[in-house]
């Protein structure tokens, strides 16, 4: 199984390293043709407005949207979640999310860097205790559609979930040093 990591901007290296430790065949994706050979993709954190522009200039927007619509398994974290959402509040006017995930997110909803935080999360389906949630200028999930299964919440707000094979987290599993969520995703979609 070959797993791509969208590498236009942001924390793509951390996802790639986590997946390599798990023994996955990892490919960084910056060009449209690099989408052809992958069986799943990670959409990393970063600056969503920058990645949004680079999706256009790289020619990746249309083919990536098509593959996600066709059911390419994906794990979208933080900015990646914003990219996938059907609705973004507090984004830039010219920001156009791919609309492949039926959720509404509020960009930077957890505040500025000063308010960024860590907190333990209880994740459904994850054995061996809590998962360290690292939230950095993170988006708040304000609504999830009926197709979404919520896997973790913080104060009643979904922070981790999946709609079939499209997984999302408003936090950064790749910064936690804990590979269990990457492992769980790989097991589920393999």
């Amino acid at each position: 199984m070959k797993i791509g990591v969208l590498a236009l901007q942001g924390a793509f290296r951390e996802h790639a390293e986590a997946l390599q430790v798990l023994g996955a065949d990892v490919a960084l994706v910056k060009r449209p043709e690099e989408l052809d050979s992958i069986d799943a993709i990670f959409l990393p954190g970063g600056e969503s407005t920058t990645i949004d522009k680079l999706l256009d200039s790289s020619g990746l927007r249309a083919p990536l949207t098509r593959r996600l619509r066709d059911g390419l398994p994906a794990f979208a974290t933080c900015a990646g979640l914003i990219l996938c959402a059907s609705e973004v509040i507090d984004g830039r006017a010219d920001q156009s999310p791919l609309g492949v995930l039926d959720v509404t997110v509020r960009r930077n909803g957890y505040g500025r860097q000063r308010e960024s935080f860590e907190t333990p999360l209880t994740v459904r389906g994850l054995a061996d205790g809590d998962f360290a949630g690292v939230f950095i200028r993170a988006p708040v999930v304000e609504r999830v559609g009926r197709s979404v299964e919520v896997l973790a919440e913080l104060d009643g707000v979904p922070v981790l979930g999946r709609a079939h094979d499209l997984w999302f987290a408003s936090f950064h599993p790749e910064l936690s040093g804990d590979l269990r969520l990457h492992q769980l995703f790989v097991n589920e979609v393999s």
Partner: protein
Amino acid sequence: MSDERTTGTARVKRGLAEMLRGGVIMDVVDAEQAKIAEDAGAVAVMALERVPSDIRRDGGVARMSDPSMIEGIQKAVTVPVMAKCRIGHFAEAQVLQALGVDYVDESEVLTPADEANHVDKWRFTVPFVCGATNLGEALRRIAEGACLIRSKGEAGTGNIVEAVRHLRSILGDIERVKVARPEERYAWAKELRAPVDLVDEVAERGELPVPLFCAGGIATPADAALVMQLGAQAVFVGSGIFKSSDPSKRARAIVETTTHYDDADIVAKVSRGLGEAMRGEEMGALDVKLAERGW
């Protein structure tokens, strides 16, 4: 609100730097420039009253910017906003933290406030970026709590030569530390004037414990491609954008190049017709070398 939320951890502070990788952080002096930068795809903006080339031209003491100017920029954009404090001026850093800036640059571009001590950055919730010219300086800043290191380069010159020297020095010494025998790391620590536990960490990881970006002298897309290929993970562009003839177009070109730095066809495509780059300075013609500030 959950009681278990912890702010200002090393993971949260370094994490924002990791989110900026592959991006361009642009110096802006007002809300209008900040919007142009964000429109072009900047991952963050650096709010300051004068870009380095103007500080160099005007002389005098350069200080932290007026809070109302920083707030104006925070209102104008949605991307992270950074701002500079003077080296060792922890009270300016406290003000910047109170304003809610996302990163503080303890910067040699401003006039130093302390000739022996940098800010004790562990005491702050807001993360700090610091400049370095070599590995020892980088590790001393990390020991003080810096969460992101940038080359100093020579700010405000539009001349990439110093940034290249600093990157090669930092990355070259990392390679040498990596292959040193364990018992030689104590001598390395002495030579670098840096804590031995950080030397150990560099030797084991083969890189700095925090991200390494490039600053100081980037004026063209090819400059950005050069330093990214050398091993920088993102770039700061100061005077290079807004001292050029077409800031918006140049900013977009540098953003694309920083992503596709290893694809010369793309660098060639976006480098066409950008108009005049900033004029630039020869190192020999400078009265003041900003990179020499910091200890």
